[in-house]
């Protein structure tokens, strides 16, 4: 399942969705809005996507998972719009017969998603200050 949504992500339902009789392992990753980056306080993040390309690239990542690991079920869901601290912005759920593959596939999926899928976030601070996060590729933060 691949989805962009403006509604809260029902991650328990996604975990259930990928559970299969042939799978002894399910790994679910949740990305949540963090209150501090270094010393900078965040009160909310606003997510924006290029929806057509984002969904296409998320589907490609799911295909890559199935090529590399014995994945039976996979769900990739990203939320868009304004999210408060603590809310779930992204969820990845993966099931495989054994746990090493489930961990590896889930890790790959979230890393790849954050690297290539056209979804951006704007950091909103306590004074109403706003900043798009467009890191320099050469920077190591």
């Amino acid at each position, binding site marked *: 399942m691949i989805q962009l949504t403006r509604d809260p992500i029902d991650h328990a339902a996604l975990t259930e969705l990928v559970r299969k009789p042939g799978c002894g392992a399910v790994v679910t990753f949740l990305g949540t809005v963090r209150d501090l980056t270094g010393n900078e306080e965040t009160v909310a993040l606003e997510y924006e996507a290029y929806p057509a390309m984002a969904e296409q690239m998320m589907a490609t990542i799911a295909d890559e998972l199935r090529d590399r690991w014995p994945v039976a079920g996979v769900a990739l869901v990203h939320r868009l719009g304004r999210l408060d601290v603590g809310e779930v912005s992204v969820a990845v759920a993966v099931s495989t017969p054994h746990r090493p593959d489930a961990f590896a596939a889930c890790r790959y999926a979230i*890393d790849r998603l954050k690297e290539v899928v056209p979804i951006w976030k704007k950091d909103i601070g306590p004074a109403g200050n706003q900043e798009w996060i467009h890191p320099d590729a050469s920077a190591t933060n």
Partner: protein
Amino acid sequence: MILQVQLFARVRELIGDECCSLELSTGSTVATIRSALGSRYPQAKDLIARSAVAVNCEFAANERVVDDVDEIAVIPPVSGGGR
């Protein structure tokens, strides 16, 4: 030919629109698009230089020739993730 270019995130805000039209000659490439956008919107030039360009929802190299039926978008760097 007239090309429509979709804009997102800070590039969208710097240019002040979700989309812009460029009039380019036939045979223009992704590099032509970058250069045309940079001259027209100097305030966004640096960020566009750090951005990717997508043609029909796929990342495209500077040499890629574009046509007016192509869906074109500027893709500023994504957040890449909370390492």
